[in-house]
C-alpha cells in the first residue's frame, strides 16, 4: 500500500492545537519557506525597506526583509519535493544568489485578537521591540527574541504571525500558556 508522503508529515505544534486555540492562535503548518539571498533585490521586486514584507507578483507569496541581503519567501502549502530541491514558491524570480529551502525550519503560529486577548498584549510579556500600533503595523516584520527564543514576527491585517524554530516551538507555547491571563 502506497501512502502519500503528506500523510506521514507531522507539524511541530500538532499536539498543541487546543492550547493555541485558547490563546486565539493556530498553527499554520506546511507552508513553503525559502531563504533568498541576493545583492540585487530591486530586480526581484523584493522589499528593500528594513523590517517590512510585501506580497510578490506572480503566485501568492510574500517576501519578508530579514537583512540587507536576506529575505524569507513564504508561500502556499509546501509541496512534496526532493531533498534540497527548492519549493516552487520562488519560481519565476530572476535567479538570485542563493536559494535554500527552509520550509521545515520554522513553525508558524498565527495569533489573532479576540475578546479576551490582543496578540500585542501577549507578546509584550516577552518581546522588547515596540509593538504599539504607532510603531508596528501590518506590513512590518522583525527578527527578534520572544521569551529569549529567536523568532520572526510578521504583522498582518488579521493578526501577528510568529515564526519559530520547531525545536523551540513546544517550549514557546508552554511560555505563552503560562503568561497568558
Amino acid at each position: 500500500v502506497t501512502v502519500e508522503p503528506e500523510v506521514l508529515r507531522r507539524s511541530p505544534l500538532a499536539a498543541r492545537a487546543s492550547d493555541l486555540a485558547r490563546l486565539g492562535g493556530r498553527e499554520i503548518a506546511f507552508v513553503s519557506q525559502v531563504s533568498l539571498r541576493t545583492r540585487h533585490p530591486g530586480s526581484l521586486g523584493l522589499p528593500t525597506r528594513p523590517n517590512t514584507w510585501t506580497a510578490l507578483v506572480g503566485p501568492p507569496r510574500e517576501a519578508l526583509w530579514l537583512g540587507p541581503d536576506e529575505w524569507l519567501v513564504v508561500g502556499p502549502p509546501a509541496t512534496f519535493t526532493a531533498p534540497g530541491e527548492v519549493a516552487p514558491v520562488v519560481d519565476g524570480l530572476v535567479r538570485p544568489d542563493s536559494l535554500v529551502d527552509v520550509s521545515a525550519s520554522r513553525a508558524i503560529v498565527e495569533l489573532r485578537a479576540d475578546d479576551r486577548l490582543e496578540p500585542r498584549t501577549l507578546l509584550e510579556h516577552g518581546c522588547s521591540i515596540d509593538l504599539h500600533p504607532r510603531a508596528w503595523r501590518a506590513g512590518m516584520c522583525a527578527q527578534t527574541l520572544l521569551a529569549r527564543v529567536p523568532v520572526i514576527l510578521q504583522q498582518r491585517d488579521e493578526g501577528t504571525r510568529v515564526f519559530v524554530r520547531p525545536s523551540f516551538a513546544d517550549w514557546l507555547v508552554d511560555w505563552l500558556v503560562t503568561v497568558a491571563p
Partner: protein
Amino acid sequence: VTSSRLAEGGSRIDRSRPIAFRFDGVEYPALVGDTIASALLANAVDAPFRSPILGRPRGVFSAGPEEPNAFVEISAPWFDPIAAATMVELVDGMVVESRPGVGRLREKAPSRRVEHRHAHVELLVIGSGHDGYYPARDAAARGDRVMLVEQQRDVTEGAGGDFIAEGVSYLTRATALGLYDDGYVTVLEHAGELDRLWHVRARHVILATGSIERPIAFRDGDRPGVMLALAAPGYLGNGVLVGARSVLFTARASACGVASGLRRAGGEVPVIALVDDREPDPDLVGDSEVLVGWVVAGTEGERRLTAVHLEGPSGERRTVECDSLLVAGGADPNLALWRAIGGGVRYDEEAHAFVPTDGPPWLSVVGAAAGEVWNGRPYWFVPSDDYSRHFVDLQRDQTIADVASAVDGGLRSVEHVKRATYIGTAIDQGRTSGVLTAEVVNALLGQAPGWQVPSNARPPAMPVSYATVAGPYRGKLLDPVRVTPMHASHVERGAVFEDVGQWKRPWYFPREREDMDAAVARECLAVRNGVGLLDASTLGKIEVVGRDAAVFLDRMYTNRMSNLAVGSIRYGLMLGLDGMVVDDGVAMRLAEDRYLVTTTTGGAAMVLDRFEEWLQTEWPELEVWCTSVTEQWAVAAVGGPDARAVLIAAGTDIDLTNDAFPHMTIREGTVAGVPARLARVSFTGELSYEVHVEAWFGRHVWEALLAAGEPNGITPYGTEAMHVLRAEKGYVIVGQDTDGTMTPHDLGMDWIVNPSKGDFVGRRSLSRSDTSRTDRKHLVGLLPTDPDTVLPEGAQLVDRDTGSRPIPMTGFVTSSYRSPTLGRTFALAMLERGHERHGESVIAPLGDRGVAATVAAPVFYDVEGTRRDG
C-alpha cells in the same frame, strides 16, 4: 498606650473595612489602606524592630522608601523575604515577622504572581507630584505616549478625576528600580496580588523624584519614637498620630508646619528646637515654644522614647518628656536614580544640598529633585565628646565614631569610608545616610560642605526579589528547551535525557530494571554486532552557497574542500586564529556551488557567526551565502553491520551496495516513503548511514526505521553509547577532548592539515614557537592496569612519584568509559609528549591511591578501519 489611631480623618484608610494581621506572632487590627508600618504605629507596638548588628530597639523611622529600620519578612498570603514595612499595604490575614535587614530563603514559599511587560513610550515620568504631573499631561496632549510612575498608591497631585490626564498610563504603587542606557528603565509595580516588572524603553525620561528629609546625627538618635519629621503628616493620612507629645528638632524653619498638623489632629508639640537663621511662620509654630539655637543632646527611653535632653547655645540644658521626636535636617534632592546612570551632582551653596549637574541627554530632572529645595544653614550633627551613639546609618548600625575611626585610619574618600564601614550598603541603599556620611567625612577632614559628594548609588533602587527578576522564567521555563522532531518517540520509549546546550538529547534508553551502565553496554554492543539508531538531528547544519563557496571553505577548514567531488563528503577541522581546534564536522558537496556543512551540536551558532564574520568583515568580495538548515533536516543515523538490511527493509530506491554508494558519499532518493538524503559517514567505525529528511518527516522515519529493524534487533541508542563507540575509535569530541588549547598536531591529526593548499584561518599560528614546540600535551589512549577501573574524567596524570611536592602534572583524562566491546575500561587523555610515549606508564593520583595506566595509541578498535563497509 493602646492605640494611636485617631477617631477621624485619614484619606488613605477605609474605616468601614477592618482587617487583621499578625506581626511577630501577635494578631493586630488594621484598616484597609494601612501599610504594615502605619498599622504598627496605630497599634502603638513598642520597639517592633531590632538593629541588625547591635540589637538596639528600633521603631519606624519614615513613611516611605527611605526607611532604614522597619524591615519585615512576609510569609502569608505570599512570601517576600524582605520588604520595607513602610511600603507594603496590608491585606487581611497577612503574616509578617520583623527582620533585622537580612532576608532568609525558604525552600518552598508561595511567591507573588509575577509578570514581565515591555513598553515603549515617548516620555516616562518618575514621580507624580506637581513637577512630574504637568509635563506628563502636556506630552500626552501632544499625542505622545506617556507613562507616569508613582511610588505611592495615588497620583500625588490630587486623586481626583481632574488629574487623570487622558493618554497617560499611570503606574501607581510602582518603583523605578533602575535607569539604564538610552532610556531603558525597569519599574516594579505592585498590582494587587501581582508583581509586574516593566521593561520600559522611553525616548525621554523625567525624574520628578522629589526630596528626602535628611536626618541629624545626635546621641541616641535611634530610639523608637525618633522619626523623620515628614513621616508625621504622612501617617496622619492613615489616621495615625505618631506621638501624643512630640518634640520637633529642625534645621529648616519650614518644617514647623509639621507641628501645626499634629496639633490639629490633637497632638501636643510643646517644644521646637530650631537651628535655622530664618524665622518660622508664627501660624505654624502656634503655641509651641521655639528654642532657637537649641539642639537635641540625647534621648531617654528603653523600648519607647520617653524624653529628650535639649541643649542651648550657651550650654544650658532642659529635659522634655515626650513620646515622639521628629527630626528635619533639611531636604535633599532624591537623586539615587540620577546618579546611578552617571548623572553628576554638586553642592549648591544656596540650596545647601547636592543638586544635579550633567546627565544623559535623554534624562531630565525637575522640581525638588533638581534642587528646588530651601534649606537653612546646614546642620549635620550635634557636637559631642562621645560620638559612639551618634548613628549615621541605622541599617548598618554605624556611628560618627565609626566614620571617624575610618578617617583616622587614613581613609579620606567617601567611597573608601563606605567600604570600610559598609555605610550605605544595606538594603535601604543608605538613603538617609549618604549625604550625612559625606558631610561627616568632610567635617572630619576640616573641609567645607560639599567638598566630597556622597557615594554613588546603584540599581535596584528598592529591594527586589530574585523571583520577581526571574518572572515566568523558572521551573520548566527556566531556560528555553529545544527538542528534535523525534522527541515524543524518545519520551514514549522511556529515554533518559541529557542537556546539550539547550537541547534535550536521549542519553540512554533503559529497559526495565536496567541501570545506566547496563543500558549503555547493551546499546554499544547492538551497534557493534547488529544495528543501532541514533537521533542526530541536533547536529549543526549550514548550507554554504555561491560561486565562491569552495574558496571560502578552503579558507575556513584546515584541509582542501574545493577538490571534493559533487556527491562526496569530507571531514574537516576548523581552527581559531590562534591555531587551536574550535569545531569539526563534515562538508558534503551537493553541487558545484553548494555545500552542506555540519558542525557539533553546541558549535552550530558559533560556526555560523564565524562564517558571517569572515564574509562580512574580511572577504566581502566573496560571493558566498550561509544559511542555517539545522532544523530543516531531521537526522537518524543507522549504524552497525545490519544497517544496510534495515534500510532495505524500511524501503528505499537508493542502491546501497558499497560500489554504488561508497563510504563518505551522499545519495538522494526515498526512505520509508519520504524524500531522503543518505550520507555514508560514520562516527562509530561501523557501516553507517545518516538519513536526512525534512524535519516534519523526522518522527515518521524514526518510527519506520525502528519497525523495519525489529527483526535485526535494532536498538535506539543515546549520547552516552555514542561517546563510548567513538572513543573506541579515537574520534575526538570538540569541547570534551579539546578545551580550546589543542592544535591538530596535539590531537594527532596532522593528516588533515594541508598547508600547501593556501592560507586558512589559524594556519600562521601553527608555526608559532609555542604551537610548534615538541613538549606539548598530545592526545593518547590510556588503558588502566586494572581493567575494571574507570578513571574519572578530569583526573590529573603524573609520571611517577618522585617524592618531591608538588608532583609535576603531565596530563589529564578527557574521556573515560567502560567498553563492553573491549571487555575493559579505557580512556582518552592529553599527555605531555604523548605521541612518543605509547607503552609507558602513568599514574592518576586519586585521593590517597595512585591508579596506574598504560599509554596507548588512541584507537582501540578496528585499527585497520575494515568495518565501515559492513
